[in-house]
């Protein structure tokens, strides 16, 4: 592409030279020089014979005729060369930038779309707040928790923050449900998150790998069994926590219809599930996304949703293969479309 344009410019400039513009310019320059000489001759105090004047002018004109076309031609050629060089340089730069962009587009994949990311942010911010305001109630005898309660302004305002966070969690659940039903990605992800026989095979394979009976890790699709576990743990947790929590929040209303022991059972389930969820997050989720040597100290995946190509190939090879296949198909379709159009 770049080469042909360069040639075009060269040809054009050569044509311009050939078009005899040089001579036009040469004529003008010659006239200028002659008129200047004539002016100078007029001004001179000593009398110069007219013949001599004619001779001087004639010799000047001859000399100018000899050198001007050559000089102008050379100058023009130089200018053209410089212009060509500048054009080539900027073109190279443009090409480089384009190449870079292409490279970045190639190297990362959008793993989580904006809805998914907002849901995750709602989930983690509400859960952190819920744990901080809830855990002291489970272990009131553990004295550092008294500090935590004070941090939120005493038990009454700590209670308010707990319920505020609960509202965020409920909104998250509603958002996620609507997303799963209404959004194309949501429906696809939900189906991909369903437990499959392959997950059991993957667990066995991974265990084999851990014990050195297999040389490579199992090949995961878009969601590995680890991620599926996380997803369904949150699902189970949300159902238990929101269900029992709502009964306890509106206990005066729930006691209108339910016996006290039902609420006591809710309280027990709420606090026990809270401990389980906290442990699962702190031990399991934090290991998988933070403390794992490959990941430490964590990535910004939750913020931009993009995953680098190498990580994609390593952790989700099946999804990567699928994507590549789709891309190829698309290319082929485009190509066939092009040929049809032409």
């Amino acid at each position, binding site marked *: 592409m770049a080469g042909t344009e360069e040639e075009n410019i060269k040809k054009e400039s050569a044509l311009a030279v050939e078009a005899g513009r040089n001579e036009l310019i040469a004529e003008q320059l010659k006239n200028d020089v002659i008129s200047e000489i004539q002016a100078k001759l007029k001004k001179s105090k000593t009398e110069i014979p007219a013949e001599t004047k004619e001779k001087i002018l004639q010799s000047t004109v001859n000399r100018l005729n000899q050198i001007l076309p050559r000089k102008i031609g050379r100058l023009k050629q130089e200018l053209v060369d410089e212009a060509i060089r500048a054009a080539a340089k900027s073109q190279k730069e443009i090409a480089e930038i384009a190449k870079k962009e292409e490279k970045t587009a190639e190297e990362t994949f959008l793993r989580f779309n904006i809805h998914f990311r907002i849901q995750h942010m709602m989930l983690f911010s509400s859960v952190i707040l819920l744990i901080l305001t809830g855990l002291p109630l489970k272990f009131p005898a553990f004295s550092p928790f008294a500090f935590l309660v004070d941090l939120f302004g005493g038990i009454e305002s700590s209670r308010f923050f707990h319920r505020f966070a609960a509202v965020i969690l409920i909104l998250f659940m509603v958002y996620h449900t609507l997303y799963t039903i209404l959004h194309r990605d949501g429906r696809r992800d939900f189906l991909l998150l369903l437990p499959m026989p392959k997950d059991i095979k993957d667990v066995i394979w991974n265990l084999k790998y851990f014990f050195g009976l297999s040389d490579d890790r199992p090949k995961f699709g878009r969601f590995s069994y680890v991620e599926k576990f996380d997803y369904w743990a949150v699902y189970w947790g949300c159902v238990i926590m929101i269900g029992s929590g709502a009964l306890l929040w509106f206990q005066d209303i729930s*006691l209108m219809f339910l016996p006290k022991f039902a609420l006591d059972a809710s309280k027990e389930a709420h606090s026990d599930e809270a401990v389980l969820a906290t442990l699962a997050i702190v*031990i399991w989720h934090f290991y998988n996304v933070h403390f794992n040597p490959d990941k430490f100290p964590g990535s910004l995946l939750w913020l931009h949703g993009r995953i680098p190509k190498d990580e994609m190939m390593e952790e989700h090879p099946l999804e990567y293969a699928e994507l590549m296949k789709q891309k190829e198909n698309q290319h082929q379709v485009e190509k066939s479309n092009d040929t049809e159009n032409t």
Partner: protein
Amino acid sequence: MKNKFHLIIAISILSVFPLSSIAGATIAIQKCMLCHGKPGFKKVEETGKVKELYVNLSTIEKSVHKKKTCTDCHADVVEIPHKQIPQKVKCIRCHFKGNPDGAPQSDKYLEYQESIHGRAVKSGNRKAPICQDCHGNHDSKHTKDVLSKVHKSNVAKTCGGCHIDIYAQYITSIHGKALLLEHRIEAPNCTDCHGEHKILEHTDPKSMVNPVNIVKTCSHCHNSVEIVGKYGIETSQVSTYEHSFHGIAVKFGSKTVANCASCHGKHNIAPSEDPSSPVNIKNIPSTCGQPNCHPGANINYAKGKMHVNPKSKQSGIIYYVAFFFKYLTLLTIIALIAHIILDLNRRSKEWREQKKKI
């Protein structure tokens, strides 16, 4: 501190000049008995109140002060017949720490001065009790003496002298019955809950019966197998309360949440079988439904145990919920940790192999 300083000066003066020398001379008990020994010796005050002035000598002889003479306490009487009405006896003359008279070494009067009674006296309330109002005057006896006004079995009656309506409630309560009728010496009287010398109003955060401290006060007995356990009373009630929402809120400083007394009552505490008890199953809706608590409480509040212990099988469904989550948590976390350890192990192995290759 100031008080103590004054006392030290008083002690030093008194040790140089014995009381008797200040009073001029010890007036023999017999001289006093000339008038005060006559049964029926009394005075009618301006208000029409009859004041008994007869002193039964045998009462004094049975008291802890049998060796003392009248003027040892009534020190302002220096001549007979005395012209002025003697002032109220001040026990602090002898009963301070480091006294030379052999009186019990104690600075409980300091606690008394901080108490609601002591402060009332200081502010000029003539009806407020001073030492002898509780400990007795001529008949004051050792605390361990069953006839003493401050013996465990008599304290309620002594306090009831002034707090008559509360006394009436107390004697019908389980505590009053156990102590006064069944003579169970561990059962509490007034001072076991309110304190002895340092009795404070219940609104004072330092008071033993303030909402902040009441759980601790009740727990002293109700959390102890040695004290209530031997009567077959459950000792788990305290820990179950502490793990309930009420107990947790109290722990973190709530003053409005229910404490022991909110449900069980104060002076008229009765077992739940008693139909008059606020924790009787019939009364639970009204007890829980107090205006500041759960207005509109219904019989559903009474369905299920109040003091729930999730670790006890008697708790029914709650026990099974706790059981389920206990093992779910254990198994899940063990599995997850095992997975992490195995993963780390394999990673480190690979890492070492890579290092070797290099």
